[in-house]
């Protein structure tokens, strides 16, 4: 796409400015400072890509010199289409119109295609930039741009992150010079474990020493055990001899001597003395029991012959038993009688009180005869119901009457107030019909007033336009080009007027349509006249249509005035304006309010009167009902009194109180029944007492026991004495019968005891004979000698037995006794002491060695059982494994890192993006080969350059001039790259070369000239030298020199 010409209606310092056609590849706009070079650059950007919105901080370039804010640019697309783009300031970038060279309007949607679908930012950053923008970083921040520069899409976007992660992981595993990494930690732990293992290895040496010492100790203990056994054997022998000497040997000698001094009593009954004493005891007991049996026979003989007094009472045993059985009941009756008598008296008093309460004329007879039947109770209940019903009806009706009277008074009061309010209200002056007509006139007046004002403004506007046409002079050199814009402008205004009419609505729409059509006609006329009479002088083409519009607006104004006058006459006012309409509307509103209020009060009074009438009817009906119910109540009362009189009851009784009387009568009857029952109970007790006394009396007189026949209650005491006498007699008879029986038994026992006594004496005699004793005394003496001899023989046997045990079995006893016969006690004691001392010494040494052996064995066991070394060795292997594992992980990451770096180096060298390669060519050319390469490290968002020495630099390490050349070259690369795929937009630079030295400036100009073969170049500058560079570059390249357009 190329720019053919510009036309500025109003933009910054420019107004009605036009330039073109721009037909050469390079055009230089040359002008002094503030001549408007940057303004022109901004104008191109904004017409093509839109105005910034009102909130933008960018310079709005207002039309300082007048004119409409905007203008048009005529472009030629790469395909050769000529299109004029016109844009004025407005929302959304400002309205834009496109027209083909034929004037035919084109759709707006064509514009992005013509601009290569590039965004405003791309255009500003890549194609049309100022010196300041040349090296700011906006270029590299634009995603669409940097994706062209860097390696996006080449699969390396994660490379920096990958390298970073590998580096971090490697540092965690191993870092030369570091001491926090995993291998260092594991190695440190290994050192500690190795030291532990070295320590544990000392255990082996210790184990050897302990083992050797243990062997020695065991040998010593074995030897010591031999000595201990020998010593013990000798000691045992000496102790046996000494024990024998001290014990059995001495005893044996003494026993033999004593036996020799005693007489020989060898044949003697075994246990003779105890058997003698047993027989003596037996004889004494037999004699004592014989004598006791004799005494018993005499005693029982006496007791069996004794007589018993009142023995005859046993014949009346059955009567005595009855007395005994009835005694408890008799005693209870005697105790109960006074209590029962008191109860009769109490009941009699209670009944008397109840009768007194019923009335003086009440006694037991009337009480018994009082009618308490169900029929009577029903009668009372019926009267009670009737009386209560009459009373309740009366109360209800009276209450109703009271309510109705209160309501009547209230409604009368409301009626009075409504009458007063209606009288106080003013009557309305106008009728309803009049009010409505006046309202319609007022609405019509307001509408026509608006139309008149609009028509007035239209007339004034159109008049102003005619005035301005008359005073404007159009330069001849601009008319030809200006005509096209005028056609478009007026056409556009026409559309806007129609749209405005539609928005305003009502009367404005036809006016808008008319004005719009008029403007369309004007534009058509202008267009046709422009084609047919190019170059002729004429009246300004807009004058005639505006005049027509003015005439139509004046006609509308007159119509509106006429209607307004008619309305004023109908309303009775002189003229209609805003003020008079307002006043009349207020008056009309007051009248409407008065009429509405009067109608409302009148309706209120009618409603109050109807309510009062209804209240009076209700009160009268309630009063009649009260009278009727009162009469019914009085009749019921009279009927009740007659019922009372018929039964002799007091007239003061009400049906409710009759129930109370009935209750008291029932109470009296109950008390009367209770009294009768108590009297019967007292009489029964008296009968029981008399019957018992009658039973006692015959026995008392037969056995002389006292009884007072006049006092039956005392019969209990007499009965007791008779029972006691009967018991005594019975006991005496039993004693006599037992004595007779025991006498026979005593006689048999006497004979048995006599036989026992004789047997005992015979046994005694035989025992003495067996002991060869004359009597018991002699027997005892012989028995003592025999006992002593037997004891000594036992001692002798025991001594021999102990000696046998000390010597051992067989002939050793004889040997022992021979040895004892030769020994003496002092020698034996001395030898035992010596051997005991030796034994203690051996035991002490044994204890000492055993303790040492235990300690040694414990030590060895501990050394053998220790697990520490096992654990340490296991830990060592684990740590070694860990170190080699970490090392392996580190190596894998190192190789991965090297692999990525290796691939990156190759990739960077061989596969830089085309943009960078193009830029590199330009940059190399501009710097005369000082810089050889422009590249972006893979995966990064940075630009680096490599100079002829091979060293890489970043842009901020370059001089300002070189940096600007780099960024210019980058743009050239981008322009060329973008141009291969889309519309080739013009490259527009504002003072981009001011910091270049002459040599590089010329080289840059040559680059521009080369680029201009594809893309149009527009250069804004104030420096003649820059113009010269371009002229020289064109000459060197043999192409058309640049077109120079001076700007004032």
């Amino acid at each position, binding site marked *: 796409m190329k720019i053919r010409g510009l036309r500025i209606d109003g933009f910054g310092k420019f107004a009605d400015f036009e330039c073109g056609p721009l037909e050469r590849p390079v055009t230089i706009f040359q002008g002094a400072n503030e001549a408007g070079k940057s303004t022109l650059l901004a104008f191109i950007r904004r017409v093509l890509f839109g105005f910034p919105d009102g909130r933008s901080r960018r310079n709005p370039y207002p039309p300082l010199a007048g004119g409409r804010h905007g203008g048009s640019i005529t472009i030629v697309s790469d395909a050769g289409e000529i299109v004029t783009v016109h844009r004025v300031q407005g929302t959304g970038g400002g309205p834009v119109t496109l027209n083909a060279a034929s004037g035919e309007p084109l759709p707006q949607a064509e514009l992005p295609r013509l601009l290569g679908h590039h965004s405003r930012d791309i255009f500003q950053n890549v194609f049309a930039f100022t010196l300041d923008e040349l090296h700011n970083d906006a270029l590299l921040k634009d995603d669409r741009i940097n994706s062209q520069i860097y390696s996006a899409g080449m699969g390396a976007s994660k490379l920096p992150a990958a390298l970073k992660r590998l580096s971090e992981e490697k540092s965690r595993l191993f870092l030369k010079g570091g001491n926090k990494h995993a291998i260092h930690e594991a190695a440190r732990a290994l050192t500690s474990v190795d030291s532990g293992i070295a320590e544990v290895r000392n255990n082996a040496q210790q184990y050897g020493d302990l083992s050797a010492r243990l062997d020695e100790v065991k040998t010593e203990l074995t030897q010591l055990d031999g000595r201990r056994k020998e010593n013990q054997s000798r000691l045992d022998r000496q102790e046996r001899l000494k024990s024998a000497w001290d014990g059995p040997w001495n005893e044996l000698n003494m026993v033999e001597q004593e036996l020799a001094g005693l007489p020989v009593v060898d044949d003697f009954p075994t246990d003779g003395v105890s058997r003698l004493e047993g027989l003596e005891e037996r004889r004494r007991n037999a004699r004592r029991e014989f004598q006791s049996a004799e005494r018993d026979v005499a005693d029982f003989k006496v007791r069996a012959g004794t007589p018993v007094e009142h023995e005859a009472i046993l014949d009346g045993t059955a009567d005595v038993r009855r007395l005994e059985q009835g005694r408890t009941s008799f005693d209870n009756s005697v105790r109960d009688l006074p209590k029962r008598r008191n109860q009769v008296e109490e009941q009699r008093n209670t009944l008397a009180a109840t009768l007194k309460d019923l009335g003086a004329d009440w006694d037991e007879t009337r009480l018994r005869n009082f009618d308490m039947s169900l029929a009577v109770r029903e009668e009372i209940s019926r009267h009670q119901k009737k009386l209560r019903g009459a009373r309740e009806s009366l109360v209800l009706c009276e209450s109703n009457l009271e309510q109705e009277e209160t309501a009547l008074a209230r409604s009368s009061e409301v009626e009075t107030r409504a009458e007063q309010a209606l009288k106080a209200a003013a009557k309305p002056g106008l009728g309803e019909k009049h009010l409505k007509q006046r309202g319609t006139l007022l609405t019509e007046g307001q509408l026509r007033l608006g139309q008149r004002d609009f028509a007035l403004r239209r007339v004034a506007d159109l008049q102003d336009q005619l005035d301005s046409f008359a005073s404007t002079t159009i330069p001849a050199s601009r008319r030809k080009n200006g005509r096209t814009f005028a056609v478009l402008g007026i056409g556009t205004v026409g559309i806007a007027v129609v749209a405005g009419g539609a928005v305003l609505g009502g009367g404005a729409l036809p006016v808008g349509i008319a004005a719009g059509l008029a403007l369309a006609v004007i534009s058509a006329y202008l267009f046709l006249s422009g084609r047919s009479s190019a170059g002729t002088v004429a009246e300004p083409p807009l004058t005639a249509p505006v005049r027509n519009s003015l005439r139509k607006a004046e006609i509308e104004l007159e119509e509106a005035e006429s209607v307004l006058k008619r309305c004023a006459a109908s309303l009775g006012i002189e003229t209609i304006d805003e003020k008079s309409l307002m006043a009349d509307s207020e008056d009309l509103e007051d009248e409407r309010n008065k009429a509405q209020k009067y109608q409302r009060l009148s309706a209120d009074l009618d409603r109050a009167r109807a309510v009062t009438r209804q209240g009076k009817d209700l009160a009268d009906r309630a009063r009649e009902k009260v009278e009727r119910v009162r009469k019914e109540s009085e009749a019921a009362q009279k009927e009740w009194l007659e019922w009372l009189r018929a039964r002799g009851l007091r007239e003061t009784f009400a049906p409710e109180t009759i129930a109370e009387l009935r209750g008291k009568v029932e109470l009296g009857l109950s008390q009367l029944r209770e009294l009768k029952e108590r009297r019967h109970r007292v009489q029964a007790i008296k009968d029981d007492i008399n019957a018992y006394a009658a039973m006692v009396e015959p026995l008392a007189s037969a056995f002389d026991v006292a009884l007072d026949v006049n006092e039956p209650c005392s019969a209990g005491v007499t009965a007791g004495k008779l029972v006691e006498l009967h018991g005594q007699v019975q006991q005496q008879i039993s004693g006599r019968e037992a004595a007779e029986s025991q006498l026979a038994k005593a006689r048999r026992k006497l004979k048995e005891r006599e036989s026992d006594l004789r047997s005992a004496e015979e046994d005694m005699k035989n025992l003495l004979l067996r002991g060869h004793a004359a009597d018991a005394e002699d027997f005892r003496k012989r028995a003592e000698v025999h006992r002593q001899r037997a004891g000594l023989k036992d001692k002798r046997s025991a001594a021999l037995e102990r000696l046998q045990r000390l010597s051992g079995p067989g002939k050793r006893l004889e040997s022992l006794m021979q040895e004892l016969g030769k020994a003496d006690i002092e020698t034996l004691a001395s030898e035992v002491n010596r051997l005991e001392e030796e034994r203690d010494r051996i035991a002490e040494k044994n204890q000492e060695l055993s303790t040492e052996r235990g300690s040694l064995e414990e030590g060895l066991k501990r050394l053998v059982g220790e697990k520490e070394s096992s654990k340490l060795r296991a830990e060592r292997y684990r740590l070694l494994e860990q170190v080699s594992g970490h090392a392996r992980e580190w190596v894998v990451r190192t190789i991965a890192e*090297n692999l990525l770096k290796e691939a990156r180096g190759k990739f960077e060298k061989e596969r830089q993006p085309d943009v960078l390669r193009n830029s590199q060519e330009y940059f190399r050319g501009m710097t005369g080969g000082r810089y050889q390469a422009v590249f972006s490290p893979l995966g990064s968002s940075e630009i680096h350059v490599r100079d002829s020495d091979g060293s890489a630099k970043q842009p901020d390490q370059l001089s300002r001039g070189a940096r600007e050349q780099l960024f210019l070259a980058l743009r050239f690369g981008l322009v060329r790259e973008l141009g291969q795929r889309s519309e080739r937009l013009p490259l527009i630079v504002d003072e981009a070369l001011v910091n270049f030295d002459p040599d590089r400036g010329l080289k840059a100009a040559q680059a521009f000239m080369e680029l201009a073969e594809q893309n149009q170049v527009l250069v804004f500058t104030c420096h003649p030298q820059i113009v010269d560079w371009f002229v020289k570059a064109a000459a060197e390249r043999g192409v058309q020199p640049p077109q120079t357009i001076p700007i004032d």
Partner: protein
Amino acid sequence: MTRLRFVHAADLHLDSPFKGLRVAAPEQVADTLYNATFKAYENIVDLCIGERADALLVAGDIYDGADRSLRAQRRFVEGLERLHAAGIRSFVCHGNHDPLDGWEARLAYPPGCHRFGAEFESAPVFRDDPGRAVVHGVSYPHRDVTENLVSRLGRVDTAPFSIGLLHANVDNHPGHDPYAPCSLHDLLEADMNYWALGHVHTRQVLHKQGPSVVYPGNPQGRSPNETGARGAYLVNALDDGNVDLEFRAVDCVRWERFAVDIGAHETEQALLDALHKSMEELLDGAGGRPVIARISLEGRGELNRFLGRADTLDHLAEQINEAWTDRTPFAWCERIENRTAPTFDRGARVAGSDFLAEVLRTADRARSDPELRERLRAGMPGLYEHHRFRRYLSGAVPNEEEFAALVREAEMMAVNLLAEDGE
């Protein structure tokens, strides 16, 4: 008819630590590991007593003398004492790990035990019937025995049943040091009925009969490379001079490795479920023993990227261990290795024009370009030659083959890091 019944074991390596563990085991696991070699040895002794064996033959490397473990030697002697008390004889020779000149705790061996010296000796199995069966054995006088000990055997007195007890590397078995090297031919030539060998940790029957030449392997696996059932041979020597061999597992904790293909699993949970299932199967197949597992994740799949994230494998192992370590018997996953690859078509991508393709091509070029390999090694000497760490890493410097594997691993890591661009 059985002439003799004996148990043949070797390479007990009592109290020697487990290798290959990188993380500290939980307490229960650690306790089991500390006692595992002892327990396996006790199981051998129990086997002898339970089967009423006539003798136990131990073919060297009973313990690691360099470790100077008193506990190991004491427990060994205690086991022999138990055998002696049960009337079972024991025959022991020493190997490269417990040579005669190594450190020894001077423990008294029970009378029923015969330890062979630095020269071949012959010892009858039955003292009351010396001609019935004879054991000929020799111990290493020092660690580095590089001569063929079989050649020193010479002529032996013929007996109805002769056993050779030896710690040796037959036919240069790979993966084991070439101590006391000899050939199978040497052994077959000797006039033996049974060669009870030690040194190779994986059980092997080199020659079945006439004579039988047998490595029983070590009775307890001690590293992720020593997987599966471990134990000893129960040998019934028959009248005809042949033997019946019966392998008996005595290990008390079993090492296992298994691989899971991530291609079959779309989600992390599905992978975890598969790992749980595999762990359960391992335990089921271990005969009531605890299991230590090393898991290898393989294949291509979407989960490759998830597995490539930092600490993911550790977290995965933690989740598995939370479910299995507290059980009895336990299963413990000591490590998960990631050998997976991304899903992308490397062949197609390497032909592309983007950066990822360049990375892949660079990795490929490294195979044939020694200078590029050197550049990829840049920085590595800084670690392997570090004055402080080189002693721990002297054996870990990757050779060319290992380096090639590392390059592949690094390539996968780089691809994952560039993932979004690469997919």
